């Protein structure tokens, strides 16, 4: 799960990380008012759940309230990577001496949380990793002790080379680690962390992601969730025990298991078609699931053919067939459906499906090719 910059700043502030003052605004009028009240140079920043806002023109410096108003007019309603800007953050501009990067991330290789810092702040860390990997300092944190004061200080010292500043920065690293643990984060970035001309260290921009598996114990984080239409659809599917992701193609797929679902999409592509979705109905063969899955698939108007690919393990193919027969009685559709059943009780399942007249096949590749063929009619 992702959150906006203004939400990340709020979490930072709750944990005592210094953040410049800011106001969230939804209208041009609110921006002008906020800038006037701050009575100094401000930055107007688009709040969308996408990176590269600066490059897209979604972040503007404004010297006066008038400038801020003009900036808001440009930014509100702007399209950044397909997302429309509905709100902006107006923050105090600060006099920057130097910009740094600080981030915490789960590292699957070391199976630990890694602290990453760099003197190359203000640009995307992926760019630094690609072009100047030697400029990133990484420190793998022992999960049993957590990040220790002296470790944070040593890392900060490498970055700042001055113990006074290093102590200030280390205190921010410690707070960032604490909030990372306490919110079940999977990414917490301060970029840039700035050293001001007044020798202050401030978090100017923040990005946080959270572990979806841990949301059950993070009610405060869950309350920050903001979903677009596609995600709403995905969550509605989740609540029915299905995993659904919409794609751009025209062949609807219904598969049991995530890996097989991905392989099914790949196969459709391999034979020259284009998958309309990823849909994993999971392990159970409850007929209701099949009905729900068919409803979701067919609500996508791009779908011209459906490929059902079931490999019965624990899932019994005859149960899936029964669910499908029931689903088709309820959902009247003239979209062609190809069914591939294999594994546990496949023969019984295929026999049941005979009465429906649906084309049935026993291999994945045949099913993919047939679905592509039917989608062209």
């Amino acid at each position, binding site marked *: 799960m992702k959150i906006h910059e203004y939400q990340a700043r709020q979490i930072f502030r709750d944990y005592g990380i210094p953040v410049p003052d800011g106001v969230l605004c939804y209208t041009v009028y609110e921006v002008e008012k906020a800038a006037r009240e701050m009575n100094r140079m401000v930055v107007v920043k688009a709040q969308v759940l996408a990176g590269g806002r600066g490059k897209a023109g979604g972040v503007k410096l404004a010297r006066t309230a008038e400038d801020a108003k003009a900036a808001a007019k440009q930014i509100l309603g702007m399209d950044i990577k397909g997302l429309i800007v509905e709100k902006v953050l107006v923050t105090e501009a600060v006099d920057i001496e130097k910009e740094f990067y600080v981030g915490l991330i*789960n590292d*699957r*290789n070391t*199976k*630990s*949380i890694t602290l990453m810092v760099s003197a190359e702040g203000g640009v995307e860390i*992926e760019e630094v990793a*690609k072009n100047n990997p030697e400029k990133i300092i990484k420190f793998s944190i*022992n*999960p*049993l002790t957590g990040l220790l004061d002296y470790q944070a200080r040593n890392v900060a010292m490498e970055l700042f080379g001055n113990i006074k500043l290093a102590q200030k920065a280390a205190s921010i690293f410690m707070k960032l680690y604490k909030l990372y*643990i306490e919110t*079940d984060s*999977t990414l917490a970035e301060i970029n840039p962390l700035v050293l001001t001309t007044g020798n202050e260290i401030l978090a100017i921009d923040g990005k946080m992601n959270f*572990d*979806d*598996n*841990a949301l*059950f*114990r993070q009610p405060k984080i869950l309350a920050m969730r903001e979903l677009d239409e596609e995600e709403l659809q995905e969550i509605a599917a989740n609540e029915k025990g299905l*995993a659904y*992701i919409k*794609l751009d193609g025209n062949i609807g797929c219904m*598969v*049991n*298991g*995530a*890996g*097989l*679902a*991905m*392989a099914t*999409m*790949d*196969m*459709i*592509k*391999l034979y020259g078609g284009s*998958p309309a979705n*990823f849909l*994993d109905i999971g392990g159970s063969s409850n007929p209701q699931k099949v009905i729900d899955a068919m409803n979701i698939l067919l609500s996508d108007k791009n779908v011209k053919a459906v490929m059902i690919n079931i*490999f*019965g*393990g*624990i899932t019994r193919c005859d149960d899936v067939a029964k669910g499908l027969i029931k689903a088709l009685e309820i959902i009247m559709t003239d979209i062609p459906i190809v069914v591939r059943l*294999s*594994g*546990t009780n496949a023969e019984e399942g295929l026999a049941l499906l005979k009465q429906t007249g649906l084309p049935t096949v026993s*291999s*994945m*590749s045949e099913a993919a090719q047939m679905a592509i063929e039917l989608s062209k009619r």
Partner: protein
Amino acid sequence: MSILVNKDTKLVVQGITGRDGKFHTGKMKEYGTNVVAGVSPGKEGETLDGIPVFNSVAHAVQYTGANTSIIFVPAAFAADAILEASEAGIKLVIAISEGVPIQDMIRVTPILKMNGTLLIGPNCPGLITPGEALVGILPAMIFKEGNIGFISRSGTLTYEVVNLLSLNDFGQTTCVGIGGDPVAGLYFIDLLEMFENDPETKAVVLIGEIGGDAEEQAARFIAEKMTKPVVAFIAGQTAPPGKRMGHAGAIISSGAGTAAEKIAAFNKAGVPVAKEPSEIPVLLRQKLEGKI
């Protein structure tokens, strides 16, 4: 021979009285797995399918000599169950539970290392040594005794491919589903090494998917350390970046972890990558006959 589980496996089932635990305990026993105990706090003294139930893993180990554990408890309690098994002296833990928080797994990892406990999963289908022991939720009838080692990050795709192998007379020494989570127990390299050292295993089939760089690491390991042939398949070539395809580990972002990168790494290591599952037995045969 085989790896990890065999006739000497003495299995304890944590969460044996739950719906899944109960169902799969029956299946494992039916297959011939030596299920010696179950754990379900508050139910000590009961039996299930003739299997004694204990309040704790420590008790189960004390009374039955269990050496391997399989975990079916809900995700929120999985880390606790894994640690309980490890502290009780269990040397191999298989966590089936799906949806375990990543930081729970990060905290568990160093303790397992100190205790010398091996973990498979979480969010995995388990493993099977055909003809000897099934420790997981894999559908037993598709497996066949033989000489192929099998490692996969996915569940049903495993069944698809194993079925194709068995139909083509490629039986298996051991098949391991390592699970789709970003922070998990044994991974490709650990298992490749075990198969390399297993005299019975003649070749290995590896099923990877998008996300992370475990496949790239496996490719390097194969090139440097393995004498046995390996054939691979990567799922998720058409997956859009940044999306979670059912598995938390299957996220591709920031240009790392794409199928194309993984396929390139395998090709460089001399590992043929199948375009579709049905090509795997074909490539395996060619590789074993020294034709590729």
